[in-house]
């Protein structure tokens, strides 16, 4: 299936959870925030929410800023 991750099309295994996706990318769940189809996904739901074809995911973190 295809998901849209930070604006880019990406292939992902069917029914992958957000948590598993983060693991494949090497990002610690405590260090990022996730928006799924326009809504913030709470951290407690990372392991429960499975992704579906066409899901749009924004994956963000803190960077230096003023």
């Amino acid at each position, binding site marked *: 299936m295809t998901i849209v991750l930070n604006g880019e099309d990406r292939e992902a295994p069917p029914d992958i959870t957000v948590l598993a996706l983060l693991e494949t990318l090497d990002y610690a769940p405590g260090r*990022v925030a996730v928006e799924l189809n326009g809504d913030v996904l709470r951290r407690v739901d990372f392991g429960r929410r499975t992704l579906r074809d066409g899901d749009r995911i924004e*994956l963000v973190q803190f960077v230096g800023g*003023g």
Partner: protein
Amino acid sequence: MQTGTLTIAGRSYPSRLIVGTGKYPDFDIMRRAIEASGASMVTVAVRRVDLSRRGGESLLDFIDTTRVTLLPNTAGCYTADEAVRTARLGREAGLSDLVKLEVIGDEKTLFPDNEGLLQATRILVKEGFTVLPYTNDDLVVAKRLRDAGAAAVMPLAAPIGSGLGIQNPANLRILLEEIRDVPVIVDAGVGTASDAAIVMETGADGVLMNTGIAGADDPVKMARAMQLAVQAGRLAFEAGRIPKKLHARASSPLEGIVR
């Protein structure tokens, strides 16, 4: 001698200086500069992770979050909608309701979009955020932000990153005179220590800066200079300066002069 603490939405912060985390030569210099500044709050930006770089070094590895509070910003947002989305993500990433709200209206000056700022403030206040909006040095806008529930107002001294110092001291004085119920934190435009001291002498509750420190030849030394300037300026404000006079007033007694 101590100056009073900065209180925002009922929470006290020992330092009146808030510093940014952007534009440092590297994370280690940033870490040392934050330490030297004595800041108890630091701003951070919320950005998409770089998918071409897996995991790796994170800003948060260099910030002692047991000692400093993170203040996520909405820098780079040009609409209320973008700013609200960014604030929500910042809250989830940092697990705190604080947000430095920026809604920018002009690319060249980075001046705020007042309408978008007000709109985003109202939405975020309703969602329980502690909103600290970056705004013009405009009293009417500041009042509206306060009335919309902003926990502080953060007027600029000069354009972001310009280092020009206070460009409109009269406006800042008016704002400080009229906005008494929420803190006024001057955000942006401080170029060197004297700028920060003047901001604090004018009576600002706090000052927020990034480029003035990060862009200095020696950011760590400048961070310490800023800490001292903020403390000196605040002490001078609390001490109450003498009135300015056009002519001399002798400091030594006029009686008993040897003639």
